[in-house]
């Protein structure tokens, strides 16, 4: 594992002979972003089709409680955050299908509950607030080698998941009843999708933070919608926008001395604005 990482590092030295890429922490931050941002952007395309932006925001905010639980139990917060996010994702998905309430109402209830629970725990335990800062705003500059390996693993997992199930997930997002007649096993697929979203959201929190994590899943697919007509171009434009913003964001944050996560999201927002402009001018012609 170490040999792979050192190989990647020396490759980056050769490809990026710039001041910003010199420190090891910057290389790790760049790798972390180039692994998580395109993964989130690819998953974001069906997520937007399913109108689940609010869902991903709820999972992101469940990290408050996840991190608090980790510190309380003396376990690594990254683990409890992912585990708690997965539990919340499954519970929301199950409850949503069993009540007459609209899904945004169900999500709203859980969203507030988990945030309140997280804040309640944090307010009891003095000294927890400092721990939370890194999760609230994200801190890609502090990513450890072992976390990079996990992110690479998640990248492969999501790629395989989408390669096998993308068509069915998209069909489900278009019309559930119709998808079922085409042999889509809806409850199982919905739960697996919610779980994968939860994993990606909690991994991406490391880079851009709780407050901004939904941006990584929503802005690149939204930008792609401005220019793509078909399902294939939508995914690749989304991944391209995420890769570009990840790279541009980290470089800009180095020279502007701004928070890396926020700068990456601003770069993605700039891509969205550019595609929206492109679309507006094309329409007028």
């Amino acid at each position, binding site marked *: 594992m170490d040999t792979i990482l050192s190989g990647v590092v020396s490759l980056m030295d050769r490809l990026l002979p710039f001041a910003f890429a010199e420190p090891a922490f910057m290389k790790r931050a760049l790798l972390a972003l180039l692994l998580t941002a395109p993964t989130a952007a690819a998953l974001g395309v069906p997520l937007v089709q399913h109108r689940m932006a609010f869902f991903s925001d709820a999972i992101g905010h469940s990290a408050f409680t996840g991190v608090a639980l980790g510190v309380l139990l003396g376990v690594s917060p990254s683990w409890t955050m992912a585990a708690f996010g997965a539990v919340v994702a499954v519970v929301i998905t199950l409850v949503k299908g069993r009540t007459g309430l609209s899904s945004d109402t169900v999500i709203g209830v859980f969203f507030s509950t988990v945030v309140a629970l997280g804040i309640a725990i944090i307010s009891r335990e003095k000294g927890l607030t400092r721990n939370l800062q890194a999760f609230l705003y994200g801190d890609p500059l502090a990513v450890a080698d072992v976390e990079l390996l996990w992110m690479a693993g998640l990248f492969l997992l999501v790629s395989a998941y*989408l*390669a096998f199930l*993308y*068509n069915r997930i*998209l069909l489900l997002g278009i019309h559930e009843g119709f998808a079922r007649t*085409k042999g889509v096993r809806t409850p199982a697929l919905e739960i697996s999708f919610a779980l994968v979203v939860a994993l990606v959201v909690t991994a991406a929190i490391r880079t851009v933070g709780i407050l901004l994590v939904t941006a990584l899943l929503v802005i690149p697919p939204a930008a792609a919608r401005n220019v793509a007509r*078909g*399902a*294939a171009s939508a995914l690749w434009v989304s991944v391209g926008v995420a890769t570009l913003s990840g790279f541009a964001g980290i470089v800009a944050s180095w020279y502007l001395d701004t928070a890396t996560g926020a700068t990456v999201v601003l770069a993605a927002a700039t891509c969205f604005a550019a595609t929206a402009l492109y679309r507006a001018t094309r329409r007028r012609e």
Partner: protein
Amino acid sequence: MTISEHLHTLEIRGLTVRKGGVEILSGIDADLRCGEVTALVGPNGAGKTTLLLAILGQVPYTGEIRFCRAAEHGEGAPRIGYVPQSLPLDADAPITVLDFFALSAQRRPVFLGVSRRTREAACESLERAGVGHLLRSPLGRLSGGELQRVLFALALRDAPDILLLDEPVSGVDVAGEELFCDFLSKVQRDSRFSLLLVSHDLSVVTRHADQVICLNRRLVCSGATTEVLTPGNLAAMYGADAHLFRHAHADGHGHLHDEGGR
């Protein structure tokens, strides 16, 4: 009529659907027959869509829904096709008609491209439905009539044994009507195929359906179209003020009017 006249593809016995303690459908008995068009009529909220969903196995029910498949129909469970009323899509959804066909036709994820076999099959069935030019159009930008023809084309591609059409003629233009007649001739040609049609338009029902099932939370009546669509049954279904009468339209079809509402 063909030999398969009395062959049932679907038998419904004592079907009851409850939702939140309320009986939406109670004690429905009905049959679908091979090579025939069965129309499902009834006022809004009569449970027509619920009956479709029960047949599709998408709502819990008590009672029995039996699919019958004679040996000559082929092996395995019958294929049920479903044409929904509409697709709730954004106009901007980046999914073309071809992508939509590919989603249920190929293993390869659509972001890695559409296989040639999928494209050829899609072209062929779209051409047959008279909408070959829509292959690369965004799905969310189709007009109501175009979308219905695309959905018809997709249903035909998968050669179902039973096809459930939900309100297929509402908002369909003249060309759509012709396509619909095409469908019916296919039903008659191919004895494997039976069609259950949910419709509000009694002119379509009187012209095209062999059998009618009248529904208003329970079974009002069922049988051959000419015997069932009587003023008495319509009154039982839609209320006493409803009348089926003939307009001075060139086509001379019956339309249902609710005079009490005026």
